C-alpha cells in the first residue's frame, strides 16, 4: 500500500485506518453539538437520543468502512452503482410504497429502502467517472452526456414525486461538471436554460402542495395558522433568541411546542432560540471548518475522479446546510431538507457519512509517485 506517514504517532494510527484527523474532529464536534441540541429539541426524550446515537454510530461505521476502499475501486464501481440505482428508481415507480402521497420507498420485506439515497452518491460518482476518463476541461459532448446522466435520475425521482431530492441530486452532478472546468459561457447558458425551465416546472411538474410552499415562502403571513405557521413560528423562535439566546432547555418556542418539526427539519431554530446568534456562529463555524477541510482534501487528491467526487460531495454538503438554514430562517421556501448531522433521524445521515467516507478514502489513499 502506498501510504503517506505523518510524524505524529496518533495521526499515523488514524492514517492506518484511512481517517483524516481534522475532518473527523470537525464531524465529531458537529455530532456532539447536534446531540446536545437534540436533547433539548426532543423535549429531553431519551428514546430519541438513543435512536440518534445508534444512527450516528452506524453512520460513522459506514464512513470508516468506505474510507478503507481505494478511490480506484470506487471509480470502478461508479457506473455499475449508477445503473443499479436507475433500475431501483424504475422499480420504485412500478412497485414502490406510497407514503405521504409520494412513491419513494421500496419495501424489501425487512426494511424500507429509498433508492434516491443511493443516487445521491451514485450520480456524482458516475458523472465524475465519465468526465475524468477524458481530458479536462470537458468538451461540449462530454458535458452533454454528463447532463444527461444527471437528468435521467432527476426526472425519475421528480416523478415519485420528490422534488427536493431530485434537485439536490441534479445539483450534485452539476457540481462535478462545474469543478471539472466547464466553461463560464456554458455555465451562463445552462443557468439561462434553467430559468426558462422554471415556469414549466411550476405549471407541469409541481404538485399543489409544492406550489403552496413557494407561495407561503413569498408571504408567510397570508396564512398564519395554515401553511405559513411553520415559518412564522420558526422566525419568532430565531428572532426571540437574540444575541445570547434564552438559555439551553429554556427556549419557549421549542419547549412549549410552538415550533413545529423542532427536532427534525427546524432544529436550527432551536439552536437560534436557545443559544442565540453566538451559538449560531459556533455552529456555522463548525460547518465552515468541515467544508473547508473537505475542499482542501479534494484539491490535494491525485486523480481527477477523486478531486471531482470529493469537490462535488463537499459542495452538496454545503447546499444541505444552506438550504436547511435558509428555509428555517425564511430565506428559502420550505423544502424537506434536514440540517446535516444535527436533525433527528433518517437514512440521509448514513448517505452523508458514506460521502465523507469517500472523501476520507480520497484523502488517505495516495500513490507514492504523486508525492513531490
Amino acid at each position, binding site marked *: 500500500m502506498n501510504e503517506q506517514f505523518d510524524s505524529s504517532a496518533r495521526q499515523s494510527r488514524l492514517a492506518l485506518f484511512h481517517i483524516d484527523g481534522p475532518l473527523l474532529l470537525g464531524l465529531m464536534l458537529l455530532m456532539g453539538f447536534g446531540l446536545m441540541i437534540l436533547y433539548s429539541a426532543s423535549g429531553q426524550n431519551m428514546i430519541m437520543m438513543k435512536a440518534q446515537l445508534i444512527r450516528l454510530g452506524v453512520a460513522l461505521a459506514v464512513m470508516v468502512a468506505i474510507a478503507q476502499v481505494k478511490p480506484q475501486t470506487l471509480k470502478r464501481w461508479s457506473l455499475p452503482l449508477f445503473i443499479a440505482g436507475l433500475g431501483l428508481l424504475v422499480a420504485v415507480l412500478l412497485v414502490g410504497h406510497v407514503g405521504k402521497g409520494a412513491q419513494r420507498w421500496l419495501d424489501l420485506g425487512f426494511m424500507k429502502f429509498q433508492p434516491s439515497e443511493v443516487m445521491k452518491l451514485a450520480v456524482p460518482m458516475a458523472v465524475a467517472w465519465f468526465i475524468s476518463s477524458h481530458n479536462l476541461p470537458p468538451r461540449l459532448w462530454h458535458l452533454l452526456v454528463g447532463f444527461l446522466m444527471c437528468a435521467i435520475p432527476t426526472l425519475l425521482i421528480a416523478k415519485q414525486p420528490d422534488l427536493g431530492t431530485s434537485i439536490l441530486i441534479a445539483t450534485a452532478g452539476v457540481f462535478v461538471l462545474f469543478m471539472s472546468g466547464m466553461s463560464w459561457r456554458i455555465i451562463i447558458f445552462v443557468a439561462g436554460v434553467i430559468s426558462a425551465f422554471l415556469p414549466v416546472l411550476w405549471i407541469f411538474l409541481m404538485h399543489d402542495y409544492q406550489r403552496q410552499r413557494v407561495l407561503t415562502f413569498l408571504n408567510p403571513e397570508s396564512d398564519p395558522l395554515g401553511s405559513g405557521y411553520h415559518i412564522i413560528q420558526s422566525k*419568532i423562535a430565531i428572532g426571540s433568541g*437574540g444575541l445570547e439566546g434564552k438559555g439551553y432547555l429554556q427556549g419557549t418556542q421549542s419547549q412549549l411546542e410552538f415550533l413545529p418539526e423542532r427536532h427534525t427539519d427546524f432544529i436550527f431554530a432551536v439552536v437560534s432560540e436557545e443559544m442565540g446568534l453566538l451559538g449560531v456562529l459556533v455552529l456555522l463555524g463548525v460547518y465552515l471548518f468541515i467544508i473547508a477541510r473537505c475542499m482542501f482534501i479534494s484539491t490535494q487528491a491525485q486523480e481527477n475522479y477523486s478531486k471531482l467526487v470529493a*469537490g462535488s460531495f463537499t459542495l452538496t454538503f454545503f447546499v444541505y446546510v444552506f438550504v436547511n438554514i435558509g428555509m428555517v430562517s425564511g430565506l428559502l421556501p420550505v423544502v424537506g431538507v434536514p440540517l446535516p448531522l444535527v436533525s433527528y433521524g433518517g437514512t440521509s445521515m448514513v448517505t452523508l457519512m458514506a460521502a465523507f467516507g469517500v472523501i476520507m478514502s480520497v484523502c488517505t489513499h495516495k500513490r507514492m509517485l504523486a508525492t513531490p
Partner: protein
Amino acid sequence: MLKKRVAIQDFAAETRLFNHRAVVAMSVVAILFCVIIFNQYQLQIVSYQDYQTRSEGNRIKVMPMAPNRGLIYDRSGILLAENRPVFSLELVPEQIKDMDEVLSALAQLIDITPEQIESFLKHVKAQRRFNSIALKEQLDDTEVAILAANQHRFPGITVEARLSRHYPFGDLFTHALGYIGKINTRELQQLDEDGEAANYAASRDIGKIGLERFYQRELHGTMGYQEVEVNNRGRLIRVLRSVPAVSGQNIHLGLDVGLQLTAQQVLKDQRGAIVAMDPRDGAVLAFYSNPSYDPNLFVHGISSTNYNALLHSRDKPLFNRVTQATYPPASTIKPHLALLGLETNTITPSSKIWDPGYFMLPNVDHRFRDHISWGHGWVDIYTAVMKSCDTFFYELGVKLGIDRISEYMGKMGFGERTGIDIFEESSGIMPSRGWKRARHNQPWYLGDTVPLSIGQSYWTTTPLQLIVATAVILNEGQLATPHLVTAFSDEQNTTFHSPPLQPAIEVVDPNNWQVVRDTMHRTVKDIGGTAHKAFIGASYDAAGKTGTAQLAAIAQDAKYDAKAIDERLRDNAMYIGYAPYDNPSIVIAVALENAGGGGSNAAPIARHMLDYYFTAGVNANE
C-alpha cells in the same frame, strides 16, 4: 488509449483548473455563509424586540378569574344566598372533533337528558368556541368518579368544581331575592353596551330577577386574572402572575327569617301577600308572596317541565304579589281619605252625617250601598273609620272631588312605583280625569268618584304601596322609599344603606294627622272596631284598618253570598296596620285573594305577624 496519455501530460494544468474552481466555489460558500449570518443578524439583533414580543404573546395567556358573588344575609346575619361548590361536566367545543359522537358516548356513562343536550348545544352556539360549557351540572359523587375514570377517552372534557349559588331557605325569600342564571345573549349584549363585558369574561351567571338582578353590579365583584404560560395546545404550564378577583359585596337585608317563616306558616295555601316595613326608614321587614317557588330550580337551568308547571299554575307562583299584584285597596284607604278631608277642611273631627245604609247622588236613582244595609245612623270620622262606614266616605269623596283625591293620593305614592330595590314592580292605578280619558276615552263621571271613595272601581294598589302610603300618615307627610337592603359589606367595611325620607305632603294641621292615627287606633282598640277581635290580648299597642274588596258586581238588590259565587270571585281580604301606636316601628299590609272579609281574615294574620315581631323576633325589645 491516446487520450489518456494526453491527460497525464496535462496533469499540472488540470490541477490548476480544479484549484481555481475550488477557490471560486469556496468564495461562493463564504458569500452564502455571510448571507446566512446577515439574515441571522437581522432576525436576532435588529428585529429582536419584535420577535421577543411575539414569542411572549405565544406563550403567555391571560386567564380571567371570576369573582365570588357577594352573599346575602337577613337582618340577624343568617345566610340567605350562599355559594356552594358543585361539580359539573364541561366541554370545550373547540377541542372536540365529533360532538355528536362524544355526546352519545357520555350519555352511555352517565344520565344525560335530551333537554340537557339541547340546552348545551344552544349555549355552544351562543358562546365562543374555546369557552368551556357545562353539559350537566350538579354531578353526584358516583358520576364524578365515573367521569374521572374515563376522562382520558375524551379530550376537551373536564369535571369542573365551581361555586354555585344556593338559596338555603328555598321558597321562603324567592320573590325578594330572585335568583341567578346563566348569562344569555341579550344580557351579554347589554353588558357590552354598558362596557361591563370585560369584567364578566369569566362569569357565567347573572342576576335574573329580584335583588340578585337589582344589585347585580354590587354582588358580582371585580374579575381577577392570571397570566399563565401555555404550550401550543393551550395547556397550562405554570402561573406567572396572579391578580386575585375582588369578591362582590355582601348585602344585608332588613328581612327577618322568623318573620318570613311566620308569614309562610300563617298563609298556608292562601294566595296573597304580606309585607312589612319600618316606617322610620323604609327598611322592609317582611316580604312574602304566596304561593312561592324554589329559586334553586332556576340556578342550573330549570327543566321545561318544571318551568311549565310554574308558569301555567292557576295560583301563579311566579307572580310577585307584594309588588306586582294590583288589588283594589278597598276600605284600607279610608284613613288616607279622612286625612285629606280634614286637611282640606271638608270635614272636621266633629262632623257627622246620617247613614241610612246607602248613598245617593242628586237626581240619580242608583243607591250606593253601605256594607251594613240598615245603616250606621249618625257617624263621625272616628266611627266611620273604626266601623268602616261606606256612606260617610261616599259623601266625603263626592265633596272632595276626583281631582283633589287623585292629586293627594298620588303624593302618598298611589299610582307610582315605590322605588323599592327590585325591578319587578307595578305602579297600580290612581285614577284621574286624564287617566280615564287616556285609558277609556271617557269623561270622569261623578258616579265614578263614589266607589273610588271606598277604594273600589278603578283604584288599584300593590300591597307595598299601601304600607308606603300608611307610613306617610305616620311620618306626617314624609315619604319613605322602601328598601330591602340595609347594608353592604366587604371584608373590611360595612356601609349602611338608608335612603332618606322625602317630604311629600305639606302638613296643614298636625292635629288632623293625629286624629287619623287615632281613628286607626280605635279600629283596633275599641269594641266594635273592625279589627278589634283580631287583636284582643295583644301585648303591644296596635292600630290598623281593614278592607274587603268586592271583585264580583252584585245586582242592585241582591245580597253578597260567598258560597254562591265562584271561589275566584270572592272578596279579597285586606288589612293595613302598625305598632306600637305611639311610636311605630312596623307598618304591615296583608292582602288575601278571595279570602272574604278583611276584619275576620286579614287582620288575624297581621296579628300573628306582629305577635312574632314583638315577642319572638329580634325586635322583641322594642
